[in-house]
Each structure stands twice: as structure tokens, then as C-alpha cells.
């Protein structure tokens, strides 16, 4: 009898090294400052989805607390998506207080400066008394691009590459997934006293499944041949990475799981969304974004840093089309509630890990071969940080 599972061990995995990983980057404020400047202010960050801007005039605001930045994202009358720093160019007042809405102009409450949703200063009371031209007072642009319906921003005024170049081969794969057509989503959010990498790592290794999710996660992800639920394949794409999740051919499912997912499968079939060659692929886009290809639980998870030891997670299950009937509504509600049950179980143990690291008791931590995605994240982060430090050292020498 053939084994149902064969572990993914390859030269590519071993080539990432076996050395212990320094613990400091997982709690030290200095390292976090380097990460912020080297990575989070320079890489493409997923912050929204086009379904939040369904028509011209729609807008959303996103707070990036790690950078003290508020971003206004709009869809203008031409249908283009634009992003700006959410600051009035008069004296810096935060322009838009609402989290979302529909408006073609934005007026600062302080002195009435009014901007279009394409960022132009339209009017300013008593403008003739200023010593600057209106066209020099447009809202400051933030780079924004879209892939697979996902809206990414880049805080670098001159991004080093386009989003498509940044995502490389993964861009085309993402475009094949339901998220590219999504029109709505379920969402839950959490705050966690943990470094963003520590929180993120939890969700890119399966070693913990049998200990932390013995009830909620055991049905499809683990089995007698694969008691730890290890993936069948890993791939590395520069700073990004994927795993292909193993599927237990004989999953243990509760009666309501069967009912709910059975209903979802029926409607996904009708929508032509059930089958995808990437349905079992779990994407980890650098630095802080996940997406699971599975259409019945097609969730994204962004772990946004707040400071060195605090982060916020945003989890969304994306859906294509409004609920077509009661069964689809039931299936979507159950799918969201079940994913929430699983994610609920992770938070406390991640915070416990952070407390241990904060003590400074450990100089290093250890990743086994099946935690290679965590090792790859650290390598990617540290490479960017060291390059940034070297760049600054050169600038320091030159000045």
C-alpha cells in the first residue's frame, strides 16, 4: 500500500541552512526600527481589496501605525484607484476622519481646504493671501497598485519595482484565484502582544497543529500517515514563499461541517469557482500577507506590525457575489466562524512565546526542517535589514 503522505524534504530546504536564529530580532525595538525603514517603508504592503471601492467616489482610510501614516484610498470618476497621505497640505491636519464612505471631494474641517478624490486642491478660502500656487498643494501621492483585486501600497516615494515585478511569478497565479473576482468578504481582526514575525511564523508552520488545534484543526490537515500535518511541497520565490497543504483523503468531519461545506461546494460549482490548480496552495507574500487558495475557506491574513512587540491581524474570507441563497449564506457564516475558532486558538500561545523572548533568556531560537518557511522569512528580513544598514553606512561615510 502506498503511503498517503511523503514528506517534502529537498535540497532547496536544506540550502536555507541549519543554524540557530538570533532571538533579538523577535523583540528588540532597535531591530524593529530597522525593519520598519528597510522593509515596511519600502516593500509593497497589502492593505485593501478593490471590492471596498465598488464605484467612483468610494473611499477607504487605512492607518499604518508602525509608520504613523494614515492613507486615503479613492476610486475617482475615471474609475482609477488612487492613494494619498491623509493630510491636508495646508497645515497637516488629518483630512478624512471616516474609515470609509462615498465622496467626490474632501474638505478639511480646520480651514476648509477642499481636495478632489484625484488629489487636486480644488479650493482654499482666501487662497490669494497664500504664497504658494494651488497646484503645488495637491495631496501627497502614495504608490498604489492592484494584483488579483488586492490593493497594495508602497510608502517609498519611488518604489524600487512595480508590484508585478515584486510578486514575480506569483502575480499570475494569484490572478487565477477567486480573490481576483471577489465582491465581498467576512472579516475578523485581533490585536496581539507579539512581534509581527513571531505572530506570522505561527501561521506558516504546521508543527503546532496537533498541540494547539487538537479539536478544530484535526479533520482535514492531519492523518495517521501525517500526524503533524506537514505540507507536501514548499516553493521559494525570492522573498515570497508558498506551501502546498496536504489533504487527508479520509477527513474526520462533524455533521455540520459536512452540511455547511457541502452547501458551499454546491454554490461554488455553480459559480465555476470550485476547481483551481492552486486550491491547496498557501501563499506567503513578503513581508506580512497570507492567502489560502482553498475556495471554501479562501482567507487572507495580514499581520501588521504596530511596534516591536505588538501587532494586529486582519483575517478575511473572500467571496464572489452576494449570497445567492440561504444555503450559501449558511455556508459562508459557518466557514468564517470555523476559521475564527481555529485562529482563536493561536493567539494566546504566540503571546506566551513573546513573553519568553522578551525576558532575554534566549540568545537563539531553533527551526526544524518543517519550519523552513519561518527560517526563510527571517533570512529575507535580515538580508533586507543588513542591506539597509550597509546603505546607510555608505551614506554616512559619503556625507
Amino acid at each position, binding site marked *: 500500500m502506498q503511503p498517503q503522505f511523503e514528506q517534502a524534504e529537498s535540497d532547496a530546504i536544506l540550502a536555507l541552512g541549519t543554524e540557530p536564529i538570533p532571538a533579538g530580532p523577535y523583540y528588540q525595538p532597535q531591530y524593529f526600527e530597522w525593519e520598519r525603514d528597510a522593509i515596511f517603508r519600502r516593500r509593497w504592503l497589502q492593505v485593501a481589496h478593490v471590492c471596498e471601492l465598488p464605484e467612483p467616489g468610494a473611499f477607504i482610510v487605512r492607518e499604518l501605525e508602525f509608520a504613523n501614516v494614515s492613507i486615503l484610498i479613492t476610486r475617482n470618476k475615471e474609475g482609477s484607484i488612487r492613494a494619498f497621505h491623509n493630510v491636508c497640505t495646508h497645515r497637516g491636519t488629518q483630512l478624512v476622519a471616516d474609515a470609509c464612505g462615498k465622496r467626490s471631494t474632501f474638505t478639511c474641517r480646520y480651514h476648509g481646504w477642499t481636495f478632489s478624490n484625484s488629489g487636486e486642491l480644488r479650493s482654499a478660502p482666501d487662497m490669494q493671501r497664500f504664497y504658494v500656487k494651488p497646484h503645488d498643494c495637491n495631496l501627497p501621492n502614495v504608490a498604489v497598485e492592484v494584483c488579483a483585486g488586492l490593493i497594495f501600497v508602497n510608502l517609498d516615494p519611488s518604489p524600487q519595482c512595480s508590484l508585478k515585478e515584486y510578486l514575480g511569478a506569483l502575480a499570475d497565479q494569484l490572478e487565477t484565484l477567486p480573490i481576483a473576482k471577489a465582491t*465581498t*468578504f*467576512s*472579516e*475578523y*481582526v*485581533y*490585536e*496581539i502582544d507579539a512581534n509581527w514575525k513571531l505572530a506570522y511564523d505561527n501561521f506558516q508552520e504546521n508543527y503546532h497543529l496537533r498541540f494547539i488545534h487538537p*479539536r*478544530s484543526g484535526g479533520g482535514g490537515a492531519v492523518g495517521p500517515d501525517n500526524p503533524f500535518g506537514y505540507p507536501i511541497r514548499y516553493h521559494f520565490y525570492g522573498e515570497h514563499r508558498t506551501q502546498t497543504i496536504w489533504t487527508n483523503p479520509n477527513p474526520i468531519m*462533524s*455533521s*455540520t*461541517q459536512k*452540511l*455547511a461545506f457541502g*452547501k458551499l461546494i454546491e454554490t461554488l460549482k455553480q459559480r465555476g469557482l470550485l476547481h483551481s490548480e492552486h486550491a491547496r496552495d498557501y501563499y506567503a507574500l513578503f513581508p506580512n500577507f497570507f492567502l489560502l487558495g482553498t475556495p471554501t475557506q479562501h482567507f487572507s491574513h495580514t499581520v501588521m506590525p504596530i511596534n516591536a512587540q505588538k501587532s494586529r491581524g486582519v*483575517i478575511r474570507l473572500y*467571496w464572489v457575489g*452576494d*449570497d445567492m*441563497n*440561504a*444555503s450559501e*449564506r*449558511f455556508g*459562508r*457564516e*459557518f466557514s*468564517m*466562524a*470555523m476559521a*475564527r*475558532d481555529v*485562529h*482563536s*486558538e493561536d*493567539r*494566546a500561545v504566540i503571546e506566551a512565546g513573546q513573553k519568553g523572548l522578551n525576558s532575554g533568556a534566549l540568545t537563539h531560537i531553533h527551526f526544524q526542517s518543517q519550519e523552513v518557511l519561518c527560517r526563510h522569512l527571517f533570512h529575507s528580513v535580515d538580508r533586507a535589514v543588513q542591506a539597509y544598514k550597509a546603505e546607510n553606512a555608505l551614506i554616512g561615510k559619503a556625507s
Partner: protein
Amino acid sequence: MTEMNLLPVGFEALNPFVEFWAVDTAVKRAQCRQISDQKSRAQFYDAAKNLMPDALALLDTKSLHALNDSELRLMKLALSFAHVALAVELQREEESKHAKDRVHMKITQAPADL
């Protein structure tokens, strides 16, 4: 309105659960699960489990926008059942401990609420 016509014909057994479990939003449904005790969850689950396939089949005969009041109540009960089934079938005796972790995962949007 009497208790007799709270729900469509055939689902009268669920009438006693309407007041607590037939609520409007995913946040409220999660809250009902959160604040209920094991006995009340078990009573709702036991009464609803075998009726759920028929309830969905009945509700599927109409557009969601065309559901009448009693059908809407049944829809809301089905959505709360999605939450309570996780407590009864998956979390079981760990539900009260799980509830303390789950409260940190704050639901902000669900398609059923839009």
C-alpha cells in the same frame, strides 16, 4: 403574535429558541454563543440539528430578499446554529476555555449582515 407562527410550518420545535438565538448580525450570533451556557447550547443544537437540512431546503426555494418574517427568523436561527454547532461538535468540553481566547477575534463584517 403568538408563538405558534414564529416560524414556518414544520419548524415549530424551534419556537422556544427564537427569542435568544434569532439575532440580526454575526457579532450578535457569536455573542449568543459566548454568553450562553452549555445546557442552553445543547438544547438548541439538539432541537435544530436534524431540522437544518430541511430548513435550508425550504429557504432556498425563495430569493433571500423575498423571505417573509417567519422565514427570516428561521434563517437567523440557521446562522446562529452555524456558531453553536462549533461549540457542541468541535470544542465540546473545552468551549468555556475556548470562549476566553475567541473573544479577542472581533468580527467586523459578514455577508449575511450586508
